[in-house]
């Protein structure tokens, strides 16, 4: 287990959106987890399960509805202006779409230098320049790229610029929201290798959100599985894949295509029937009960709590007590 200090602590976090007619869309409902220093926590789940909302609420980009998020012991949602400012210098984000998340009117240099200027990290112009060039080098771009406009770059290069921008303030915590899903396969591997290297070199803590389960497994130490606003399972990466306990995790993993024809043929697939229900009117009891083949009467009525079944392996399912 991880003995390092807790970096981010999330307790019973809820985030509801107004869905009109006095209805609430429960995007994140009673989610708890911790992230230790230097660790990567991956969150997986299908679209609409609340993984992005959860991440955004955790770093204070969205106000919470209930619960508590603490970063290094401080409540993220009730910081003073000064605390909030310091927080943004420590916590940074990498976005999904490198085409939408970079200002097309700015030069690459200014995009990267913005954080350095705001947080006054450089003593003078020369130091700022040195820092920007170092950052470019770190993400595999070179000095001549600095004075170019964003539109001159490919998707993979843009994502590198986005990473350089995030690293500019020398953050301790990185929230990556689907950083590779807009990229081609060969480019995805470059970005993942880069992120893993940077994490090792700088001892970064990461919250990594993606729907590509193979990539999440590759980069994460622990993985949380979300379904319809709930965290249904949380375990070390290898353990989750070897021994999924929640029926949803099991089905999700078995549905991921494997790039190996023989392994793919021999594997037992669990087909889920039906679709994910609406988060505006989720099923009472276990959220997965409508699609679960092991469903019992209890599942329909009582929502299972996330419990530690084995050391470090949490699951929210009535099958496991």
């Amino acid at each position, binding site marked *: 287990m991880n003995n390092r200090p807790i970096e981010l602590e999330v307790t019973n976090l809820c985030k509801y959106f107004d869905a009109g007619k006095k209805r609430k869309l429960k995007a994140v409902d009673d989610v708890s987890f911790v992230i230790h220093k230097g660790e990567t926590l991956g969150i997986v789940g299908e679209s609409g399960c609340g993984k992005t909302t959860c991440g955004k609420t955790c770093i204070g980009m969205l106000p919470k509805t209930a619960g508590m998020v603490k970063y290094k012991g401080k409540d993220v949602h009730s910081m003073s202006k000064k605390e909030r400012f310091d927080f943004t210098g420590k916590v940074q984000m990498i976005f999904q779409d490198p085409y939408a998340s970079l200002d097309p009117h700015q030069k690459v240099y200014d995009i990267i230098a913005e954080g350095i200027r705001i947080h006054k990290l450089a003593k003078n112009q020369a130091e700022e320049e040195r820092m920007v060039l170092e950052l470019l080098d770190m993400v595999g771009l070179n000095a001549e790229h600095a004075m170019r406009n964003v539109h001159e770059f490919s998707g993979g290069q843009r994502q590198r610029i986005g990473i350089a921008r995030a690293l500019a303030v020398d953050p301790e915590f990185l929230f990556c929201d689907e950083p590779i899903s807009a990229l081609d396969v060969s480019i995805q591997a470059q970005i993942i290798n880069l992120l893993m290297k940077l994490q090792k070199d700088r001892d970064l803590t990461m919250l990594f959100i993606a729907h590509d389960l193979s990539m999440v497994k590759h980069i994460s130490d622990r993985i949380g599985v979300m379904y319809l606003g709930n965290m249904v399972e949380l375990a070390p990466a290898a353990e989750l894949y070897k021994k999924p306990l929640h029926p949803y995790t099991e089905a999700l993993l078995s549905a991921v*295509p494997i*790039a190996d024809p023989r392994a793919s043929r021999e594997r037992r697939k669990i087909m889920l029937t039906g679709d994910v229900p609406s988060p505006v009117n989720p099923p009472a009891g276990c959220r997965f009960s409508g699609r679960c083949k092991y469903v019992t009467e209890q599942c329909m009525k009582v929502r299972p709590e996330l419990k530690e079944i084995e050391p470090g392996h949490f699951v929210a399912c009535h099958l496991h007590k």
Partner: protein
Amino acid sequence: MKNTLVDVKNLSVSYFTYAGEVQSVRGISFSVENGKTTALVGESGCGKSVTSKALMGLIEKPGKIKEGSSIQFGGREVLNFTEAEWQSFRGQECSMIFQDALVSLNPTMKIGRQIAENLENHNDGSLSAGQIRQRAIEMLELVGIPDPDACLEKYPHELSGGMRQRVMIATAMITNPSLLIADEPTTALDVTIQAQILELMKDLQKKLGMGIIMITHDLGVVADMADNIIVMYAGKIVESGKNEDIFYDPRHPYTWALMNSVPRLDLDNKEELVTIEGTIPDMIHPPKGCAFCSRCPYAMNVCAELIPEVTDLGDGHTVACWLNDPRADISGVPFRTGGAHHE
């Protein structure tokens, strides 16, 4: 012997833009067998979608299929079709399904009308309106839509992504075409829904026996679905062959790198992923030699100068790479090639 459905020879497609001639597809040849699934694999911009559009006669200005190209479909040359012939060909003999079902279906038209429309267009008068409706219900049942009667009266926005994709497949298959082109059919779907749709496509192929051309960049989907694989790079076919040959015995450095750039869910391995450095070449000025040369870690002098010939490795496995020339020095190449080891 071989039961060939489509035979493409020397297909070249260019787009004439203000910046110059973009050579999207540069002289490719391949065939698709009846009742089999052929996967076209490659990065964005490699020409896989353009190839499928050419098969459907959907290349529009400024695009042009160049002289000397040939596409034989069931023995007929489709590139000589008149517009009327194309009309009867599309949808009846060859159908297409797309990535985004919400964009591809008409939002103002009920599902029942959309499915029936394809059949009505190709109806020679032998089917009555009632029979067409009956056929639409049968198709919806076949693609696994619960309560097909009610579904006919719905609009696309009332259905989920997976259900819409099923409707699109039903629409494509109602005329019982002999070829189905699926352009990234599951990319927009979640994995559990993707698994359902892929299973459905396999099932339909077993029942109806159509050939499938599957365009995708997801190698997992390819491993699961394809009988034959065609790997494209910069408008050319770099390697093609049977599914297992391509996965277990790749002979082209691009194929090899693609196969090793995705982490495996079923294996425990935290090693660095194989990456392909650099970017795809500019197709207005394609490189003189092999297009992959600038990104290839094993490139030799010859690669920059001459386009590699297609080498037939037997059993339908072909590759276009100089490493397979007996004179090539292949020490340090991590996969099997036809070259010689010079110590």
